[in-house]
């Protein structure tokens, strides 16, 4: 339960920290940390404009995506506590639930009949298809190492195996989760949310026609996703057995550092050329294979 509340809290300031980091590195004063949340408030209060082409799918898609993310949230553990719902293979459910939301986001974009949104939908489908194996390789590696198959069990047994090389795979896990989160959330270097040209966007172009309440839901979903991945990263680098109050502080610190890292990446990196993205994403899977080999060595299988 604490984990759930922490994730919700960190989702509150997460986008603000990214924006703040970006404005500081580019030498602007920039908006306050809670500006993105205020914007959501504005969106919720606003009315909506719908395209005549759209129908039922477009209306329900944002809600389905968000409720998928909310349910995915329930399987994420924190510290020594098991997640609210935990069962063997819950990460499979987690991944497929996010995919369910993505399915609807994609067809909602196609529902508008716009070629821009079709393009965005196609890229989103394509890139998230490519990143899927990376997540599974990483979790399979963890499952093999710890001998458990649920988020809660894996993370609570992550550090008590008495292995001296624990840092190797916790760093690889941390790195891979960042990369997967960047692809899943359509951020740099795969996609640039602040680009001004429809032709070069992925996620932003899919939601061109969403407005008001629906757009607010989409933003909330995206912030929640960030803090979910932040929580996963936290779990691979902080031992679950540590003092709970220390952990709460550390959790917030990790989320802030994650947000700052994203801000820094977005300030100093350019977006990949679109046709280099598949290579980039497949590299993530390749690094996953390396992690797998390392674990094979650590568990004396090689």
């Amino acid at each position, binding site marked *: 339960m604490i984990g759930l509340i922490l994730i919700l809290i960190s989702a509150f300031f997460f986008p603000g920290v990214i924006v703040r980091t970006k404005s500081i590195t580019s030498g602007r004063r920039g908006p306050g940390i809670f500006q993105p949340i205020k914007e959501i408030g504005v969106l919720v209060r606003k009315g909506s404009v719908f395209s005549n082409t759209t129908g039922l799918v477009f209306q329900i898609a944002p*809600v389905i995506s968000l409720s998928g993310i909310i*349910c995915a949230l329930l399987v994420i553990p924190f510290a020594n506590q098991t997640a609210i719902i935990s069962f063997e293979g819950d990460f499979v459910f987690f991944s*497929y639930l996010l995919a369910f939301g993505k399915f609807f986001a994609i067809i909602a974009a196609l529902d508008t009949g716009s070629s821009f949104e*079709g393009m965005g939908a196609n890229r989103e489908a394509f890139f*998230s298809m490519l990143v899927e194996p990376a997540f599974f390789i990483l979790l399979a590696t963890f499952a093999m190492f710890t001998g458990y198959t649920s988020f809660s069990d894996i993370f609570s047994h992550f550090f008590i195996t008495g292995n001296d090389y624990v840092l190797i795979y916790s760093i690889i896990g941390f790195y891979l989760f960042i990369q997967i989160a960047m692809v899943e959330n359509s951020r740099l270097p795969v996609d640039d949310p602040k680009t001004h040209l429809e032709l070069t966007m992925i996620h932003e172009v899919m939601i061109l026609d969403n407005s008001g309440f629906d757009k607010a839901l989409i933003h909330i979903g995206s912030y929640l996703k960030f803090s979910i991945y932040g929580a996963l990263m936290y779990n691979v680098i902080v031992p679950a057995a540590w003092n709970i109050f220390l952990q709460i502080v550390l959790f917030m610190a990790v989320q802030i550092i994650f947000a700052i890292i994203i801000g820094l990446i977005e300030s100093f990196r350019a977006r990949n050329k679109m046709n280099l993205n598949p290579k980039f994403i497949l590299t993530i899977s390749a690094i996953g294979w390396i992690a797998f080999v390392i674990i094979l060595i650590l568990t004396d299988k090689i």
Partner: protein
Amino acid sequence: MLFILMMNAVLFLIILSLTFLVFFIPKSYKYYYTLLLLTGAIVLSSVWCFKVFSGNCQVLDIHLELPAFRNTLILIIDRLSAFFIFVINLTVFVGFLYAKGYLRPYYQNKNSLSFSIHFFSYLWLYLSMIMVVMIRDGLTFIIVWEIMALSSFLLVIFEAEDRTILKTGISYLIQMHVGMFFLLIAFLLVGKATGQMSFDALRLYFSNHSNFLLFILFFIGFGIKAGFIPLHTWLPEAHPAAPSHVSGVMSGVMIKMGIYGILRVLISVQNDLLLIGITILAISLISGILGVMMAIVQHDLKRLLAYHSIENIGIIGIGIGLGVIGMATNNTPLSLLGFSGGLLHVFNHSLFKSLLFFNAGSIYHAMHTRNIEQMGGLMKSMPYTAILFLIGSLAICGLPPFNGFISEYLIYIGMFKSLSVASLFQSVIILGTIVGLALIGGLAIFCFTKAFGIVFLGEPRSEKAKMAKEVSNDMIFPQYITISFIVIIGLASVLFVRPVFDIISRVFNLTDITLIAGASISNLTQISLLSGVFVITTVILLVYRHYHLKSRQISYGPTWSCGYSAGTSKQQYTATSYAYNYNHIAKPVLQTKKIMRDIREDEIFPDKRTFESHSDDIFKKLLIDKPVNWFSNLLKKIAVMQTGQIQHYILYAFVYMLLVFLLTYFNII
């Protein structure tokens, strides 16, 4: 008890003989007569299934006395057969209800005989399928297997006025027979070694002969029916050609007869298990990944679904392959979960694939085309079909809370559980399979967002799409039966997984499963819980959104297109453009070809040009087209003997006689 069994046998024989009466019923009553017989047969076989499942008897033997052949046909129903009968019954019944609306337009221009043949074949396809899963004797099995191929052939060529359909049908028939010969050879080998041609003799054969070779023979024979790559070449041709209720039944259940055969043989296999398991796993992974990869680039909706059947057969095969590997390595959890996932996927696939084929048929009904590039915006004109298709798509992508997820989950969890105990070699195999399965999932989502998005969403892309109307209710209502199963399995999976565990553990003699089965059941309960939470959250949010938007100002306008307001439906993303970037990296497999005349340098005002791109099925090219071409070329060369002059022919006869004379003289023949 004996009396009841005899009654069963007599009833079954009566139904078999009544099928012939279809030819003598007036045209407008044929459908109802067939429905009556079909219902009778389905009720009868369901009663048998129920008896086997309820535990009164483990195995039900039914002796059919066939006085005309002076023979007794023995039907044996164990739990595996009962499971398959249940799957067959459901899809065949729904398919036939759907056929009522689908066949209506054909009543005007088709004569009574073609309807008779169609209904007769449908009945016999059903009867042969349930007999396939009940018969153990090799020769009778081959005969029933053959009836199944013939009746499905007659069903495929329903619209035989179209020459291409007839040609497709014949090609289907030939490929089925290639498979049949492999089975025949396999059975003959068994018969020669043990003196008995039957599935029961397999155990004896396998105990003192090479297991792998015979299994491969059976696997090829059954694999052609199931559609494993590279044995799949009939599938993408025959399914689009057949009427939709037939494609639904063929893809939903008939190809599963191949899976049944493979399982039936696997029960008896004793050695070489690891080798066999890895072979099945490798072929299934290839089928799964390539099947969906080829599905993505298809423009014919039914062909797309046909390629998707190959993918799903791949998933079923992955489950079975893992199960066999589990048996080889004494890893009971992997066996149980792999086999169960595969078997449950047989049922799941029969549900959503038949549903998708029925809806593809409804679209064909409304638009008279299967080309998805001409569709678009159908969700507005055909809302019920659209929602049914959407649920089918979500289920086939393996997304929770629908049924596809449950079977894929069982396979996944079997693999994840085994990773920590597996050796190096097995770990690498299992991780490869996990990656493959994840990739299949991602590709399936890519494929079905494309299919659903291009067909049902956006603006209509052609006049036909604009004119499309929702199909009649009698085509939609039967599908609710299928939908309800899809949702029930998704939300209350335990109800179905428990019997499947039971079947698998009994059939494959898996012991000590209580622990692992109990753990899986409790996991599935949690999944049901979380799925329930998901549904409830969605509903609450939707209701909230509804009331929230009521108090806000809502306005409508055209879709945003960068300020350009005169867009036409042609500017929408097409199926081809949706698959463009994917095509780029899938080139080595798909071999997409572009056909376009280049613009010459001296051509200042280029004239009209066409552009065309299509991708071949590389396996069809290498395995069917090339050998056939080679062979027909060879025959053409031999045909120089056919001169048309009578003198030459007399000369041939003379040479032949001389040859016979000489050979006999020297005692060679």
